[in-house]
């Protein structure tokens, strides 16, 4: 009855308006279909609707900033009716991100290539017959993108239903629970029920090594790990085998993932298919407290977040820092945390007459050390700062030893006669991010893949993007990018310096040549001659210019840069041989055979590593995860660590120990608090006071006087033999031991 009524109404267009009102009052259930001349007009439908002026301006997702490389090329698109300006070449998904709309996705990652196979990012675009994969579609000018229409929503629900069809019901036992993209997106975008009643498929697990745990049944075949391994890590280990529902991600042969960046696939995988093996079943992410600190296992200073539960570090995750480590961290950084729980020194100890250590109280220990320090001549007191020392403790050590009358303070790794005059002589002058601008690399005596994996990742990124040429001088190692092995020793360096080598043409023709010298050369006796040769090459190739300084030094330890900034330069290069009182502050890689037998050795550190065997007194200190310390990375960026867990046993902070020792010894240092010692550092090296800021070197090494030292022609060695075990924390770690047993290339 109602339909007939409506049909008859349609036949009377003129009187409709009046009659509809009458009818509405008489019969409110039936609706009338009205039509107006504007509605009948087809052109009016395509007229752009004005965005209401009272809508608040939208900010991009996660506070991102857009960089317009060519501002005239900006195009305008409309996202949900909202106009946004984006640079040309951006995809629809990125345009929506700029507009503040977060589109769900599984396979898309901003740092990897586009795959477009998950289909979760489907949005509706006007004038398109079907929804469009926004991660792959480039945004065209004037496009109208609609992200929350019923079509888009239905698409997402459908995709989610398909993904969950073959996904196992593993949430209670899956480590990714609580931080799982699939969980979050199914809650937000999925429908409430599925219609699948058949058997789910399952996949055999793959063995990828002691670091990555695989449960391949959970894999949704987004191929993020495959793209990461090929593009960022440079190893083509992973691939997709099979087709359709029989697709499996794996290594075709029984191969372990030996790349030093393999742990990052754990972060990348949106589901619990690839998880961290050491962290398996240990904790849920909501019971962990995240502390934002800095990694100290190498000189890069990657930004990390230490997740801790109570007094224990449970895992380490990367933090975003575009300039240093982007979003990746190396395996050593990620998995060294279990070394923080083993072999810890927690009580001051004194070696008794029978050679065994006896735990004593702090009073006794400091009293003994102070007494011996006064019995020794000032010239025979030597202090060595370790690889993991922070700037405050090195400052306190230097001040204390200076007050005792000695100037023999050095940092291990810097060699016996470091040159700390010009900062450009020991920093990565073109910053880590600046290496992306280089188009020719000359690596001298450095293997960045094991020394600083993040720098290596950056070089690889440049090589892949711009086909930069890489020349390498040193022992044969494998790189994950194309390179030319020019030679093994200083002979090649001399040839390039004199212009005889074919690689010189590459350097001369480059716009931004970069030379990276390894800090392993600091230990050589002829290091000045080698650096002189490198500087000659730099002058030849115009590497050092006002706008571009390509002469870089890649440091090995987290403490080297700050040590050289603070002036930890020993007075005599034979200081260790003539030392009678040796103060080792975490120094485990020092060759202690040169120390005389009657020398009194004090070891202040957090692990009972190699130097403890020679020590006479042990003073327990805090590790990097337990103290607030300032570290300077190899490019000169000052960063600080924050305490994530409390100190172990009776340990104290390094600088506090030295301050207390100085008071007991009668030469009290003038600072009591962290702020006071930081202001003392500010007087010496003001760049160490400004956190998260990079202070570029003011003067280039072209100021150095000419040197005429003889260069020995012995080949360059490798500074890092075992990537997984380089300092006291990693040597104490069981995971690192497993890695070096299984993953190192023999």
């Amino acid at each position: 009855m109602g339909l007939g009524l409506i049909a008859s109404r349609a036949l009377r267009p003129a009187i409709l308006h009046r009659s509809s009102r009458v009818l509405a009052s008489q019969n409110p259930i039936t609706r009338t279909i009205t039509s107006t001349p504007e509605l009948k007009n087809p052109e009016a439908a395509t007229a752009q609707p004005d965005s209401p002026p009272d809508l608040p301006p939208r900010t991009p997702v996660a506070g991102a900033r857009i960089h317009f490389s060519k501002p005239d090329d900006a195009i305008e698109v409309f996202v949900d009716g909202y106009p946004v300006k984006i640079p040309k070449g951006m995809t629809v998904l990125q345009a929506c991100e700029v507009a503040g709309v977060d589109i769900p996705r599984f396979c898309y990652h901003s740092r990897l290539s586009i795959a477009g196979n998950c289909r979760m990012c489907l949005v509706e675009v006007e004038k398109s017959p079907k929804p469009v994969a926004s991660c792959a579609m480039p945004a065209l000018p004037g496009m109208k993108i609609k992200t929350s229409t019923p079509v888009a929503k239905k698409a997402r629900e459908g995709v989610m239903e398909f993904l969950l069809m073959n996904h196992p019901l593993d949430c209670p036992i899956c480590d990714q629970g609580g931080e799982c993209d699939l969980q979050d997106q199914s809650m937000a975008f999925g429908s409430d029920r599925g219609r699948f009643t058949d058997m789910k498929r399952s996949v055999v697990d793959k063995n990828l090594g002691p670091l990555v745990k695989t449960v391949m049944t959970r894999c949704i075949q987004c191929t993020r790990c495959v793209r990461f391994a090929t593009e960022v890590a440079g190893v083509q280990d992973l691939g997709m085998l099979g087709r359709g529902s029989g697709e499996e991600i794996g290594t075709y042969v029984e191969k372990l993932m030996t790349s030093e960046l393999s742990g990052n696939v754990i972060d990348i995988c949106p589901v619990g298919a690839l998880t961290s093996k050491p962290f398996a079943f240990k904790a849920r992410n909501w019971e962990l407290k995240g502390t934002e600190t800095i990694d100290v296992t190498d000189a890069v200073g990657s930004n990390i977040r230490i997740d801790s539960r109570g007094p224990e570090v449970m895992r380490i995750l990367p933090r975003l820092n575009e300039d240093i480590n982007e979003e990746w961290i190396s395996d050593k950084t990620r998995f060294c945390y279990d070394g923080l729980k083993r072999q810890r020194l927690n009580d001051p100890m004194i070696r008794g007459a029978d050679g065994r250590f006896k735990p004593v109280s702090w009073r006794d220990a400091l009293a003994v050390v102070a007494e011996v320090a006064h019995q020794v001549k000032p010239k025979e007191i030597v202090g060595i700062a370790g690889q993991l020392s922070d700037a405050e403790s090195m400052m306190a050590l230097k001040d204390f030893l200076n007050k005792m009358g000695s100037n023999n303070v050095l940092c291990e790794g810097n060699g016996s006669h470091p040159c700390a005059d010009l900062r450009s002589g020991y920093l990565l002058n073109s910053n880590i991010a600046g290496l992306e601008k280089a188009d020719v690399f000359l690596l001298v005596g450095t293997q960045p893949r094991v020394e600083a994996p993040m720098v290596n990742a950056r070089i690889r990124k440049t090589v892949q993007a711009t086909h930069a040429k890489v020349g390498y001088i040193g022992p044969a190692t494998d790189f994950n990018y194309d390179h030319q092995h020019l030679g093994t020793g200083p002979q090649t360096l001399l040839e390039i310096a004199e212009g005889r080598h074919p690689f010189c043409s590459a350097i001369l023709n480059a716009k931004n040549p970069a030379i990276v010298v390894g800090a392993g050369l600091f230990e050589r006796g002829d290091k000045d001659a080698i650096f002189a040769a490198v500087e000659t090459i730099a002058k030849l190739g115009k590497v050092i210019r006002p706008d571009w300084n390509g002469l870089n030094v890649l440091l090995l330890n987290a403490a080297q840069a700050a040590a050289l900034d603070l002036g930890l330069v020993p007075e005599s290069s034979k200081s260790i041989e003539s030392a009678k009182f040796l103060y080792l502050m975490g120094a485990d890689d020092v060759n202690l055979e040169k120390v005389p037998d009657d020398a009194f050795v004090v070891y202040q550190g957090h692990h009972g590593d190699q130097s403890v065997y020679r020590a006479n007194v042990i003073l327990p200190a805090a590790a990097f995860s337990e103290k607030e310390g300032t570290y300077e990375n190899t490019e000169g960026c000052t960063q600080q660590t924050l305490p994530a867990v409390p100190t172990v046993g009776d340990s104290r902070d390094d600088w506090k120990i030295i301050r207390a020792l100085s008071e007991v010894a009668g030469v009290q240092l003038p600072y009591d608090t962290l702020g006071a010692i930081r202001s003392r550092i500010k007087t010496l090296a003001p760049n160490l006071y400004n956190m998260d800021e990079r202070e570029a070197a003011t003067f280039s090494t072209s100021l150095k006087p000419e040197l005429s030292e003889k260069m020995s022609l012995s080949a360059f060695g490798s500074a890092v033999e075992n990537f997984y075990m380089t300092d006291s924390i990693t040597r104490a770690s069981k995971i690192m031991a497993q890695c070096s047993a299984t993953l190192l290339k023999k």
Partner: protein
Amino acid sequence: MASVMLKNVRVPANSANLEEARSRTFDFFKMVCRSIPKIMDIYNLDDVVTVSQLRSIIASEFRKNSDVTNTKFNSSMHLFASLYCLSGQLIEHSLRIFLEEVNAKIFTQGGIAHLRSLGNPLGVEGVFCRSKAQDSLGSKPFMLVLVSLEEPLGWNEQPSIGVLYLGISWVLPPVKVIDMLLFKGMEEFRNVVEHSKQRHHIIGQYVLAREHLVQDAGAKDQGMSEFLKNFYSSNYF
């Protein structure tokens, strides 16, 4: 060994004289010292204290009450007496006798003033307060009497001392006091040995409260700065 000791942890009704009380005290002390290793084992106190430190702590506990055996007073002692109800039903027999001997009027308001008027045989110091609260027995309020004894009361030919016990203190002969202390001590000891106590309570009550006994009294505060003092105690200051 502890179970053997437990059997002895029962106080006979009364010890006859002071010597017997003394010997019982010493036996009890020796028994406690012999069971210290067992206590340390039960509560895992090996990292917290040593046997000799615990022994000194227990010895100090015993020594705290050593003035029970004093035969003479050198200083005045203040008794803290709270008395339930004027009818005297809850007042211990000996105390009542004592109070009757003095003057029953002490119970009423102004009783102290009356005592004073008597020439203050007891050296009473007046804190005489009257509570408005009703006690559980009757409608009589209870009062607090602070009595100071300058000299022995000459009652039972033994010096009388007041012992604070559960808020009710009365004047008792010392042997009884010693017996009572022993009883309390043995009860506590039995609780400890039978693991009825919790470890952190033991640590807090006996170890941490007696830090001065446990720490070596070195040259502690000789010109040490605040920093050094804090440094020795902990990392976080």
